[in-house]
């Protein structure tokens, strides 16, 4: 009896191990047995077995399926990433959040700032061979406005669009708007083919948005498998020059740590979310290259301006004085995220006011401010008890812990509440909180401040309202001279440093990595600054 049972067990083990060894040579996992991952070479092997050519395939991780192949209809980073290779915008932002030409090769703005004339690249073809013309641009923007796409808000100031010829589009605005160009370059801004979208019932469920997306980008759509992958192939006719890669495959990889292991094991070539704990390991390893996105994003702590305690300026001043950003950077982020100074990210010289800041830590002064404002310590030795809402994941909670200990030192007790995004939004947006850590993109234009600190702004979680700031924001929006605009934004930052609806903490840092034989990834080879960061038109695997 026993023997029989064991032989069944043995057979099972054998079957499992047979399955394990039964893969073919092309899978190449055995190549990486000793940890010497060489993804590029592995790709060479794979193609060597099948086609015999030097097929260049780049495997990129994304953390979820794109929700749509119509990037104008959704605000989804996975869709946006894939869109960078499938589609082109009129303009784009590069790896430093600067505006660069895309389908428009040049443009002029009239003196009064109302008329924008874009000159499009001649001879551009859609992936299905149809000619791209200015009518496509006009049609796309009209469709976005009609369907309330993400960009509709920015396009609402358009009064008319005209196409004098195939390669020119003239957009006239109702009022001058300095951030207009930047909004056309940023997000959900892909130009879509009129010949496929015209007359469709729903722009999110039509064929061009689901199973047959057609764009003008460097790669064409081949196929997608839910939860598994999206495959793109080279667009030989790409207007920005022939891409070197034959294929780009996005693989859905849901766990950051496993993704990192798969990257080390050569199954993934490019990861866009290196776990913070592994950054220094990769930096020290010459087999890999690493890039960092930091521009225009930062962590800041927002005060609830209606909060029982935080509505009091003295409390906010005391907290600002209790904060030591160097320590938050060193202990909360392992030094990976630099301390943030000033009231706007410093990526735009002309708009950044380096004089407006909260100054360095001064515990004694913080306590003095609280005492002067009449606060007294309770039985537990605290002037007040506050909550701090942070996102789960990332380094938010770690930064929160450092802040907690810093505020503890001046007699303010902090309870950290770690919430996933949906719950965080509900809690903070309802105004039922004291302190929160907010992050996110603050560009591409400083007009982004309108949303963050303007009265009623969508991301104004502080519920801050200052008529002077609102006036300056409105003025700066219609001023075309950059220096004049800059002066206004600098003045706003000065006001913020006095009103303190928020305090800067640390800059954002997102890490990207690839094996060192891969070149041309804009976030890693920062010299590739003439393409959108997700555009792989210049990427090469350098196989030998």
């Amino acid at each position, binding site marked *: 009896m026993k023997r029989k*049972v064991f032989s069944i067990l043995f057979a099972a083990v054998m079957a499992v191990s047979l399955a394990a060894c039964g893969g073919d040579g092309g899978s190449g996992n055995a190549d990486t047995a000793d940890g010497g991952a060489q993804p590029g070479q592995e790709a060479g092997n794979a193609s060597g077995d099948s086609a015999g050519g030097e097929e260049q395939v780049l495997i990129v991780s994304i953390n979820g399926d794109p929700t749509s192949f119509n990037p104008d209809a959704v605000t989804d980073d996975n869709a946006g990433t894939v869109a960078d290779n499938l589609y082109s915008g009129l303009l784009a932002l590069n790896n430093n959040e600067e505006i660069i030409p895309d389908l428009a090769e040049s443009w002029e703005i009239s003196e009064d700032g109302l008329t924008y004339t874009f000159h499009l690249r001649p001879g551009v073809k859609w992936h299905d061979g149809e000619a791209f013309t200015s009518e496509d641009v006009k049609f796309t923007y009209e469709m976005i406005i009609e369907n309330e796409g993400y960009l509709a808000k920015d396009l609402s100031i358009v009064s008319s669009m005209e196409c004098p010829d195939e390669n020119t589009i003239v957009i006239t605005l109702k009022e001058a708007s300095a951030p207009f160009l930047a909004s056309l370059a940023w997000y959900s801004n892909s130009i879509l083919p009129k010949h496929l979208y015209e007359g469709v019932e729903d722009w999110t469920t039509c064929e061009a948005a689901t199973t047959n997306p057609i764009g003008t980008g460097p790669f064409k759509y081949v196929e997608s498998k839910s939860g598994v992958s999206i495959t793109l192939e080279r667009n030989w006719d790409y207007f920005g020059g022939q891409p070197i890669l034959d294929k780009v495959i996005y693989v859905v990889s849901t766990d950051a740590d496993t993704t990192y*292991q*798969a990257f080390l094991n050569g199954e993934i070539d490019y990861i866009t979310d290196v776990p913070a704990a592994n950054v220094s390991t990769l930096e020290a390893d010459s087999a890999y290259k690493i890039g960092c996105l930091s521009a225009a994003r930062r962590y800041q702590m927002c005060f609830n301006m209606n909060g029982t305690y935080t509505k009091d300026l003295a409390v906010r001043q005391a907290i600002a004085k209790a904060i030591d950003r160097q320590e938050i950077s060193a202990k909360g982020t392992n030094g990976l995220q630099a301390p943030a100074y000033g009231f706007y990210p410093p990526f735009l010289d002309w708009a950044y006011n380096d004089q407006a800041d909260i100054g360095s830590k001064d515990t004694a002064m913080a306590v003095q401010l609280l005492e002067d404002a009449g606060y007294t310590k309770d039985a537990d030795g605290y002037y007040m008890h506050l909550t701090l809402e942070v996102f789960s994941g990332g380094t938010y909670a770690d930064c929160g812990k450092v802040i907690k200990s810093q505020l503890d030192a001046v007699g303010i007790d902090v309870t950290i509440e770690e919430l996933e995004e*949906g719950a965080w939004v509900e809690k903070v947006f309802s105004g039922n909180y004291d302190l929160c850590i907010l992050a996110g993109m603050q560009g591409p234009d400083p007009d*982004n401040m309108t949303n963050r600190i303007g009265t009623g702004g969508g991301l104004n979680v502080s519920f801050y309202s200052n008529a002077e700031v609102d006036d300056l924001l409105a003025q700066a929006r219609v001023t075309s001279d950059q220096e004049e605009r800059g002066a206004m934004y600098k003045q706003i930052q000065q006001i913020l440093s006095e009103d303190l609806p928020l305090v800067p903490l640390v800059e954002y840092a997102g890490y990207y990595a690839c094996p060192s034989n891969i070149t041309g990834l804009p976030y890693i080879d920062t010299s590739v600054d003439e393409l959108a960061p997700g555009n792989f038109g210049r990427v090469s695997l350098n196989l030998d």
Partner: protein
Amino acid sequence: MAKYFLKRIGTACVIVLVVIALNFVIVRMAPGDPVTIMAGFDNPSEEFKAAITAKYGLDQPLPVQFFTYFARLLQGDLGESYYYNSTVRSLIGERFGASLLLSGTSALLAFALGTILGLIAGQKAGGISDRVFSTGAYICNSMPSFWLGMMLTLVFASRLGWLPTQGMYNMRMTQEGLARWLDVGKHMVLPVTTLTLIQIPSYFRITRSSVTQVLSDDYITTFRITGMSEGKIFRKYVLKNAILPVVTVFGINLAYVVAGSTLVETVFSWPGIGIMMYTAISNRDYNVLMGVYLIIAVSVAFFMILIDLVCAKLDPRIRYE
């Protein structure tokens, strides 16, 4: 008997209806709403929010939303995902196979291995194999699945390089046919092992204790006294009596196979229902969530009835009137 099962099916239908209503309310009670999440974080547009709210009828009062949902459900329509521009039915359809393959295989393996090991250990409680297997079961039982998955990955994929790290397919492979299937098999080894290892202890322990208990029953002693061979006693009497509770547990586990395994699927990027459920929770994709929960509810109801049938077959003492 038939009357009894008709009654059971009737009760099951009522329970599923209650589950539908409960799910509907509970998913909406969670903080956060799908529109805010869909509108994005950096620069949400009120117009965009209004447009999606209207598109999915989220501006309607809750009872109206419920009856709309229910009316569509009666026609076999699970609704649309807010997040993916696709129907819930096709989303679940795309993921169903992968979950079934992973969870189904490991449920069967765990059942087979756990029961066999339990039978061996139970025969001689306190013996050497009992002590070894029981210790093993303790260890497996105390390991969280995602951690075990990660450890197996580190050893067999990263350190030894024998097996792929994650996913279901080798993206660099260009061959089709048999090679593809073998490749899937290779990708299955680590997640299946993880799920099997953590499920084995429950089967092992139930089998072991029921074998031990049956062996100590008086009638077994009587058989022994009459000189019946140990092998015959075991096959004819012990096995039959000891297997009943194990079958029940197996049935309960099978009922949840359709839900996949969120943690293990996430760790291994396995494209199953579990991951989809997790994404749907963070996006408050109500229809997808309700769709998955509904399928789980139906599956549980179905398997409970099935277990009753199987047990009646296995155990002549059970009679349904």
